[in-house]
């Protein structure tokens, strides 16, 4: 594949929220690069800052209690510093977003087609009839059966999977170059999950749609992502291509994530593997590497924050934040198959 210019470039993004208990550093120096036509997956558990990162790019975390710094360039426009009107013209238009819960993401009092028409008319000067036709086309394209008829349904008359399809249709209505999908399958049944992922993959392939996929589901990542960023407690701890992350994971947290994947091609463990401990509170994050308190291989140096940098000569695009020597990591990883995770006794 010929590398193309990055469509979205995020540098040193930091987001903190003032709460009653103090300042929560939800995102702490995140950098990402999404090339046109690629699917970049941001994985991490709840509270890792992945959704906040995505919503900040859309300007949805702006508010009196949020402090946002850093830079994010999308198609030549700086998003973080953009004024509200500038951002409004981009979102829904050049970049669109779909959310975790399709049940509550559509306004219950308007017909599905009308909600799509509303978005089209917010950005383009087209008549209602033309916009409606476009809406029906889109609903048909995302696989809503009898789209012309179902277009006049209310959201509650749709199933969860159909609602997420409708959300996707809406997101595509102005042919954006970037789709941000925030846990798009989490609230859906497993079979419907597979359909939605298949739909997203088709859009990426056929329409050259770039996708920033936010998920905690490493299985989904394996199916669709070109590149993966692993987030933990507000920071990216590892960043690389799908193969690099899956076949040569460098960060002990990534080993944990991959190890917690249940695999049908391996003997069934007595208990599902898990990473011991709990994610840290972002009100008072641990000093140094955020994963240190849960890491089986932590040593003195981990009290310093490791930079996110390339530590492997043969794969220079593979970054991680771990002080361990690469050779030592490979050794440790071999123990107990996927490394740090010993089965809890």
């Amino acid at each position, binding site marked *: 594949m010929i590398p193309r210019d990055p469509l979205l470039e995020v540098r040193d993004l930091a987001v903190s929220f003032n709460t009653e208990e103090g300042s929560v550093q939800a995102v702490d120096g995140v950098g990402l690069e999404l090339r046109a036509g690629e699917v970049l997956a941001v994985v991490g558990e709840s509270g890792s800052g992945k959704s906040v990162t995505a919503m900040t790019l859309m300007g949805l975390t702006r508010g009196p209690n949020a402090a946002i710094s850093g830079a994010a360039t999308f198609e030549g426009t700086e998003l973080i510093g953009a004024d509200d009107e500038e951002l*409004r013209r981009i*979102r*829904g238009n050049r970049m669109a977003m779909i959310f975790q819960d399709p049940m509550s*993401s*559509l306004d*219950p009092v308007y017909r599905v087609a009308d909600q799509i028409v509303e978005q089209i008319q*917010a*950005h383009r000067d087209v008549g209602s009839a033309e916009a409606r036709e476009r809406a029906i086309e889109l609903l048909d394209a995302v696989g809503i059966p009898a789209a012309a008829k179902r277009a006049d349904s209310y959201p509650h008359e749709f199933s969860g999977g159909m609602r997420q399809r409708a959300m996707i249709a809406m997101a595509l209505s102005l042919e954006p170059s970037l789709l941000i999908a925030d846990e798009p399958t989490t609230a859906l049944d497993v079979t419907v999950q597979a359909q939605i992922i298949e739909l997203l993959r088709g859009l990426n392939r056929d329409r050259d749609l770039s996708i920033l996929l936010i998920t905690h589901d490493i299985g989904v990542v394996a199916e669709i992502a070109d590149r993966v960023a692993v987030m933990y407690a507000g920071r990216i701890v590892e960043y690389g291509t799908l193969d690099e992350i899956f076949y040569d994971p460098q960060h002990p947290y990534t080993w944990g994530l991959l190890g917690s994947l249940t695999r049908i091609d391996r003997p069934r463990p007595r208990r599902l593997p898990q990473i011991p401990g709990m994610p840290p509170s972002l009100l008072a994050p641990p000093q140094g590497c955020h994963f240190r308190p849960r890491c089986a291989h932590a040593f003195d140096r981990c009290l310093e924050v490791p930079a996110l940098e390339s530590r492997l000569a043969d794969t220079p695009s593979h970054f991680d934040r771990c002080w361990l020597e690469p050779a030592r990591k490979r050794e440790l990883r071999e123990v107990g198959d996927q490394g740090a995770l010993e089965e809890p006794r």
Partner: protein
Amino acid sequence: MNSAMARFAVRRLLSMLLVLFAVSVLVFLIFNVMPNGDPAVRMAGKIPTETQVEAIREEWGFDEPLYVQYVRTMEQLFSGEMISYATRQNVSEEIWKGLPRTLSLAVGAALIWMAFAIALGLYSALRAGRLSDRFLTVLALIGISMPVFWIGALMVYYLGYKAGIFPNGGYVEFTVNPLEWLWHLVLPWTALSILFIGFYSRVLRSDILETMGEDYVRTARAKGLSERRVLLKHVLRNSLIPIVTLWGLDFGAVIGGAAILTETVFDLQGVGQYAAESIKGLDLPPIMAVTMFGAFFIVTFNALVDIAYAALDPRIRLEGRSSR
């Protein structure tokens, strides 16, 4: 959908009639077991003789069994021939005379309180937590705490009697002089609205704040809609559902008796004031009539609210099952 609508209408109509029947029986019975309630004694004058009372009893049929009296009362009510025991005037005519006054008061006040409640509730929600929001919170609490008979009396005294800006109570027909009509109603409208504005704006404020956290509002922003459109078309539209429901119920209640105090304080001579006077005189026919009048409006608006609710929120189906 249409057949569902028709079934709903028929069912609702039947239950309305049942409620009205129950109300009428209840009022009739209460009146008859009340001490000092014997109308013949009251009608006979200051120091009646037993024969006089007996004669009145026979003339008006008070000696007949209760159910006969009840049936006759209802016949008179619906034929418009009901006569007051105290004033000997036709009750229907009195109610017809009071109706435009009561309606003028209720419709005007309802529009005023809704308009102000939306404006203040929206403003307060947008400024939530700031000084102006806290100020409005206090103001709303004061408004809710001021009884109509007190604030109304103050208004009449200071703005009417003392300052002479507004008329000292009373009512002028719209057809006689629209400007005077308006001028006479400004104070009653205000007095009646204050409580509702305070209450409604608080309810709307919390509904708006709750709606703002909804996922579909986030979607609306993500679609690139202007903040104004997000607020009006998505936040306010959804927040209005409960308050419009409340509005219909309260409007029915205001016509059906909740305006008694306002009408009396401002001497509007509406149906409410007529009801108050009749109760004071233990005058059964008008009490029966105004109670039925009030019950009719309350029951009717309850039904209208159900219909409006289904229209405002597509998730609600009148029949309780989905159409299609």
